[in-house]
């Protein structure tokens, strides 16, 4: 029983609940339920049943914590906790109607708690002593907190900067300025809340770049706030366009191009003295280093923070899946960024970013000469270290082994689907590898 299967199940459950809650078309709901059915089948293909538990801030599959899934499906975790659901037991051959009941409950379309059938709730509540307890990385908690801060903006339709600032402070207290941890965690993605997750990732990457550049804590803090809110214009305007498969229509594109203005105005309305940089970054993060891009600000060079966020923004976007294109590897992302050095991006900042990440940024999955797959955990300044996450026989290791990649020949880079490994899920393991010196 794989954590990846469990993640697929959680993703499908989240989608189905959303479709039902949104009173989507019959076809849309039907497709989502079919996907949930498929994911549930795969989840219980081996064992007789699968038990997903919610304890504290994390999902558990059996006794094992799914740290990364807890971050990736944060909103589902929150929803289940609100419904006081401690565990979901999926029995062999789960029926479509039982799964639909579960999705309806999660989507708040129904209040019926399934107690019998092939999907059962709260039957296998685990005691803490049953679990493999490991502390969630502080950054994960901060990540969830940041997501909540952005969701509040969307729910309330207005921005409370104090809450967002608290999220940034949590990040800083949790070690967000450490490039390796930040880059590993920033590999988390969520297809339903693209903007929220992207914003938090850009925040992490920007703060790491700020710290790497020698900023003081207060400066990193303001950069973090600016980065976390850089896309707030999308949060308050329209998330739907992002989920459309295929390229954007002209109308959608015109709408998207207005999000810097929307974001800047939203922040400006909420900001107090000393927080104005966030509005500037929201307005300028699509203005290129050479003054091009949008909106047309008369060719002026964007503010330093805007240029830093632009690099982090592009890096995260390129390495993330979008409905209209696949994700690229971190190394490919750097190459693409370099294409824009001096035109789209500030070459100095790009240089610092690459110096921070190294040629193969943390989160990269590398196939090395011996046939093993290595997750890069620490890179830059002449060092490259990681964890062997898949053996040369193709077996995913339960306990990844540290490796120094100096002198090791790298055959190729892999996408996480190819490697069968989720880079961010190894954040806690990577903590045990010697941190990047600065």
């Amino acid at each position: 029983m794989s954590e990846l299967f469990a993640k697929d199940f959680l993703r499908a459950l989240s989608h189905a609940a959303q479709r039902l809650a949104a009173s989507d078309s019959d076809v849309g709901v039907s497709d989502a339920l079919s996907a949930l059915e498929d994911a549930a089948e795969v989840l219980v293909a081996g064992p007789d049943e699968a038990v997903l538990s919610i304890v504290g801030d994390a999902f558990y599959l059996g006794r094992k914590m799914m740290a990364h899934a807890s971050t990736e499906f944060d909103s589902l975790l929150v929803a289940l906790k609100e419904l006081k659901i401690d565990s979901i037991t999926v029995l062999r051959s789960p029926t479509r109607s039982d799964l639909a009941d579960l999705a309806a409950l999660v989507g708040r379309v129904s209040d019926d708690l399934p107690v019998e059938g092939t999907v059962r709730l709260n039957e296998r509540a685990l005691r803490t002593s049953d679990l493999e307890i490991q502390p969630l990385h502080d950054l994960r908690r901060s990540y969830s907190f940041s997501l909540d801060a952005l969701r509040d903006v969307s729910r309330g339709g207005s921005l409370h900067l104090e809450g967002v600032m608290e999220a940034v402070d949590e990040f800083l207290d949790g070690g967000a300025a450490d490039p390796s941890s930040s880059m590993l965690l920033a590999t988390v993605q969520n297809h339903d809340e693209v903007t929220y997750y992207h914003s938090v990732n850009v925040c992490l990457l920007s703060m790491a770049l700020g710290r790497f550049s020698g900023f003081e804590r207060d400066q990193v803090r303001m950069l973090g706030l600016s980065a976390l809110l850089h896309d707030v214009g999308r949060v308050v305007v329209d998330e739907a366009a992002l989920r459309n498969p295929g390229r954007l229509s002209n109308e959608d594109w015109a709408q998207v191009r207005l999000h810097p203005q929307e974001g800047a105005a939203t922040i400006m309305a909420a900001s107090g003295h000393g927080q104005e940089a966030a509005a500037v970054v929201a307005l300028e993060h699509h203005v290129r280093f050479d003054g091009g891009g949008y909106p047309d600000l008369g060719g002026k060079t964007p503010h330093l923070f805007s240029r830093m966020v632009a690099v982090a923004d592009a890096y995260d976007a390129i390495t993330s899946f979008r409905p209209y294109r696949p994700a690229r590897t971190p190394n490919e992302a750097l190459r693409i960024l370099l294409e824009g050095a001096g035109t789209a991006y500030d070459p100095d900042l790009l240089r610092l970013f690459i110096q921070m990440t190294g040629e193969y940024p943390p989160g990269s999955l590398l196939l090395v000469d011996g046939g093993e797959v290595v997750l890069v955990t620490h890179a830059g300044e002449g060092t490259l270290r990681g964890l062997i996450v898949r053996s040369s026989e193709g077996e995913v290791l339960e306990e990844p082994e540290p490796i120094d990649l100096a002198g090791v020949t790298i055959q190729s880079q892999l996408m996480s689907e190819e490697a069968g490994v989720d880079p961010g899920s190894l954040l806690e393991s990577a903590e045990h590898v010697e941190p990047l010196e600065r």
Partner: protein
Amino acid sequence: MAGTNGSADVDTLGIEWHDEQLQRVRAVFESVDTGGADAVVRERVLAEMPDSDEGLLLGISALRDLLRVEHRPERFRRLLRIWSGKVTAGVRSRQFEAAGMWLRALVEAPVFPEEFSHLVAGMRRDLARDGLLEELVTGVVEEGSPPEAAPLLATWGEPLVEFLISQIVTDHPLVNRRHIVDFLGMAGRGDVRHLTARLADPRWFVVRNVATAIGKAGRATALPALEAVADHEDERVRVEVLRAVSALKGDDGTPDILAALDDPSPKVRQAAVSLLRASPSEDVVPGVVAVVDRGDVSADDARRLVDVITERRDASVREALEGLADRRFAIGTTKAVRDQARRALEGWSE
């Protein structure tokens, strides 16, 4: 989000790697591997780090950019509401410098599309309502009229002038009238026409205070309007007009002051004498001598004028006094002048 930014990742997908590009990438990667090679770059970046007190300027810059690019009326109105909120917050928190900067962000060197001028005008009018000007005026007084409030008052313009005039007229003004006139003067610094238009007010006390304020505003473009009321029927107005003209013209105002010595009102003439006494202009001594030589001022005024030049104590004064003191066959004012000059010279030698 760069995901839909053509420049970032969409247009560059599938790029072909030419040799030159590859070399550039390699060079960067190689420099990375050497480690620590980018101290200079880091310094350059840090040098660009904004000071914490630049935040306000950043915000204002962003607002002006937004005003420039926004062409949707409803969204433009929203920007105006944000602007109004910033000014209001600055006034209420008595951060007058910040309030003034926000106010000027919209008013000075306008960047917004021409078609929205009426919206801007409307919002400026609205801003002056709801007691904000009362809060502004009382706040500035309570804070001891700090100099940073002056630009804010200067930028507010006509609505503030109108409010302050209403305070002149009322029996129970919010603050001391001295402050009101001071603030009127500041309000006129941005565009003194807001004040000169008020010189046509039928109420003499309004015109008097406005004239005083114009003098404080220090805008010479107000002179024609002031001179037009120099012969106002009320002597109290004429006194203030004379003072304002003198303040605005400086040394060039001496002929106006000397001319005021012919005013039928003793108060105006007294004001003129005081102004001559305070004036550093070299034209004062010959001007005064010419006036007393004419013999058509009163004996008291003549004595005061002789005192005025005596106080200056320079060589030209002594020469002038000797000329006045040498007169023979003096009677009336001429005699009074001669006697005063002789006494002055006696005191001089001591």
